[in-house]
């Protein structure tokens, strides 16, 4: 099992749609 850590998540918009069963990534979401 790998772990995708927070250092690599920086500046990404990370969206958890738990009901929809999916994880979203948005590029440049912090600015």
């Amino acid at each position, binding site marked *: *099992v*790998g*772990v*995708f*850590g*927070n*250092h*690599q*998540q*920086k*500046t*990404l*918009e*990370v*969206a*958890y*749609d*738990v*009901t*929809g*069963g*999916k*994880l*979203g*990534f*948005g*590029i*440049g*979401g*912090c*600015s």
Partner: protein
Amino acid sequence: GGERKTMQGHFHTFQVNSLLPVSVCNPSIKGYGKKATLKVVHKHGPCSHLSLDEANAPNVTQILSEDQSRVNIIHFRLSSNSAQNNILNSSKATLPVNSGASIGTGNFIVTVGLGTPKKDLTLLFDTGSDLTWTQCQPCLVSCYRQQEPIFNPNESTTYKNISCNSAECTQLTSHAGGVIKRCSNSSTCIYGIGYVDQSYSIGFFSKDTLTLTPTDVLPNFRFGCGQSNRGLFGGAAGLLGLARNQLSVVSQTSSMYQKYFSYCLPSTSSSTGHLTFGKGGTSSALKLNFTPFSRNSKNPSFYFVHITGIKVGGRKLSIAKSVFKTTTSIIDSGTVITRLPPAIYSALRVAFRQKMTNYPMTKGLSMLDTCYDLSNNKTVLIPKIRFYFQGNVKVPIYPTGILFGHSVSQVCLAFAGNSNASD
């Protein structure tokens, strides 16, 4: 020239001093105003009011050591039930120790309100934990030092203890992020959550009003009111659990936000990010690419995803597809450094080193084994790294996510391998 131009497209030009800590906060997120948006800051950075003085702030070796402890516990929680039982049965330790629970230290904090009238509490935010807990007066056994006043249930008109014989108490199960429960007679429901480094919180399982924003208020929010607390939490008042199970904030606010939340972690410790509950919190100009969560019925707390490939400097790592196929991963806001199975990390390391031969290598830093002395460079070219997730979701890693370091003389590739392929 064309070839050279193409090559340049696979590299970041990186200002070396942008890795160094900055002492002034430069808020970068204003929030989108529509949904429940909380400001996220690094707990040791200048934007945090919990920021420790320089002498007491952890150094990078301590941060990486804590990070390894957290990953060890994640692997323990993911190991087979029989392995966990063997360890639990062989231990005579009291409630929290060896419970297999994970609270982790995390790096990012948010401030929420608890009780009536509300008291602001700054909590570590953690997608790897279910239970939210905070230290509580009168700290019957012990409390560690925190920056804000410790929550006093006697001062809240809406605080209630949960009794042992209630259905709510049964929600404290090992599936809820490793939380354990103790009940004596039919009195108050007791929770315990611990770390193998013997950090822990034990106390009353309780209910009170949670205020996320002035307009987003949740009555009867279930949380841990810690009476015996020990650990290194950087002055935070506790932890905000954002994992999948029924105790988490995500589940308890499902009628308000339909189990949808998003965050953006700041690129440096001197800038700010956000944690937003509910859809519509994301800018409409931003396109999200979705990958499905994988299922794991034995560990329902974690958010499992599937990494299908990695590119370094424009080239896919040459690894047998079967290696990625048999690899599952979790996404975790509390772990700092991304961990990969040994075969994948090894290929990543080889590819990265091949693209960095212009820079002198130096000694490793904790679990980071690919480090460079960049003290003679103002700018460097580092190969771009891109992760692929199931559904052909491409995720480029930002330059500060590729490197980790505290001085220009020791800047490291910010990825690590698991010690064992079966981890």
